[in-house]
């Protein structure tokens, strides 16, 4: 090896030393960059990756928030005591609190005061409504230590036996409905992702067809000098992979920027009262490691998809060629 090197080095042409020092591990691309609608493809991939990342990030946010919601909702149950003429509602509430607090798995039972109940109803009834005239049911918030050790049926029976006007709501329906809604939203984003992937593959296949048509002469010469279809397909794949990587990175960077900005904005908003509601509704807008990893994964998958699609197309076209 060293012998060969020194022989080449001793050649007289001045062009040689510079040429030898140039690194040529993979060699110059056999599919010329200018022959592919590269900028268009990078833009398309960037947009697709951006949208796919937003969709995936949205799905992650939704499932995180719904999990938070559900765990909050399921750690509580409520008892409602309806006022009926002839019964002492205050006594009923005290009795219900006693029964609930004594049940297994219950951490505490807190009645909402009359004032609290009225505050809850205020948004619907308006301020200063004469609530004394309206029979307002009283709520008891039951905090559960562990949902599994609570026997809701037994608790319900016990309550009804001594207070026929009491009703126990174990929040299961809410929790299930929330889960269903979140699952539907996540399914929708998955369908969106599938559509985006399909559109991107189609764009890549168009670009590959174009590139092959533009490089017919090159493909022919490569065949004549003994290149296999696999070799030629690899040349295209490499080109499209690098274009896909560029597009994917741009799109992913855009999506990360949007998520960061939304996170910062929501953090500033959360300091305000309406922000707290926002947070309760949408979570904290912080994607977390999983979310950002998903965005990076989408960028890489986009790039791989570019390379792979063009490879498959080239292979198929070359097979049909002969």
């Amino acid at each position, binding site marked *: 090896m060293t012998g060969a090197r020194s022989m080449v080095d001793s050649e007289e042409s001045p062009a040689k030393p510079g040429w030898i020092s140039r690194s040529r591990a993979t060699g110059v691309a056999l599919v010329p960059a200018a022959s592919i609608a590269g900028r268009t493809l990078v833009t398309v991939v960037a947009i697709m990756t951006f949208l796919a990342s937003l969709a995936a990030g949205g799905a992650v946010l939704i499932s995180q928030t719904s999990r938070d919601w559900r765990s909050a909702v399921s750690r509580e149950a409520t008892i409602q005591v309806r006022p009926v003429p002839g019964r002492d509602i205050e006594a009923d509430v005290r009795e219900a609190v006693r029964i609930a607090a004594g049940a297994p798995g219950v951490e505490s039972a807190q009645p909402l005061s009359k004032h609290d109940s009225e505050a809850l109803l205020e948004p619907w009834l308006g301020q200063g409504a004469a609530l004394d005239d309206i029979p307002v049911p009283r709520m008891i918030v039951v905090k559960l230590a562990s949902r599994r050790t609570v026997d809701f049926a037994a608790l319900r029976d016990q309550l009804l036996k001594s207070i026929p006007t009491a009703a126990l709501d174990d929040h299961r329906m809410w929790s299930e409905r929330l889960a269903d809604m979140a699952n539907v939203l996540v399914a929708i984003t998955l369908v969106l992702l599938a559509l985006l992937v399909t559109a991107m593959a189609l764009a890549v296949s168009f670009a590959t067809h174009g590139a092959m048509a533009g490089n017919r002469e090159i493909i022919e*010469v490569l065949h*004549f000098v003994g290149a296999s279809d696999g070799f030629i397909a690899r040349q295209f794949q490499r080109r499209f992979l690098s274009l896909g990587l560029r597009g994917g990175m741009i799109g992913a960077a855009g999506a990360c920027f949007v998520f960061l900005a939304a996170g910062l904005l929501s953090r500033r908003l959360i300091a305000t009262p309406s922000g707290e509601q926002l947070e309760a509704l949408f979570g904290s807008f912080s994607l977390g490691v999983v979310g950002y990893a998903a965005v990076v994964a989408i960028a890489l998958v986009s790039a791989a998809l570019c390379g792979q699609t063009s490879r498959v197309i080239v292979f198929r076209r070359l097979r049909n060629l002969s």
Partner: protein
Amino acid sequence: MVRFENVGLRYGAGPEVLQDLTFSIEPGSFQFLTGPSGAGKTTLMRLLLLSLKPTRGLISLFGTDSSKLDKDEITSIRRRIGVVFQDFRLLDHLTTYENVALPLRVQNRREDSYRQEVVELLNWVGLGDRMQVYPEVLSGGEKQRAAIARALIVRPDLLLADEPTGNVDPTMARRLIRLFVELQRSGTSVVVATHDLGLMDQFDGAKRLVLAGGRLHIYE
């Protein structure tokens, strides 16, 4: 090594350009292929390179019926054939060096395993100082020599050269033909298409395949 039996070829629905070709190319032989312009020399070269399929007849290459070859076999046969195209067919976006190294590169060989060989061959054909330029700045003769170097670099078993001396001066032409003869002595079968009678006369030991009116006449 190559055998044609009653081979006929027509382009599309046109007339038969080649008719009833029956001949063979022996290992280590040297032959000129000649005939008037339009006689079908390039067409015959393309048949030999498996870039055209005969409309009738049988072509056998390296002992295999060419109609029974799959893609991989065609690829491996092409790696044993060196071609100089009449119109060179250098790749414009590759330097002279890269063009000449191409047949080795498509075999996935590492560059340091062949760099020296390519440089030597380029020096031999007088392109030592044109290695790093692109075909568009090469003269016709320089392109031709680059195309020849690309065909020779794999030390082919069969060399097909279509008008390889059309663009060079007589001295260079002789030099190139001598290179082909050199190659033939080392075992390669050489087919040189040309209508340069003077050149053929200088190597009158060679077999002559003459195409005329679609038929082939052989003069030993």
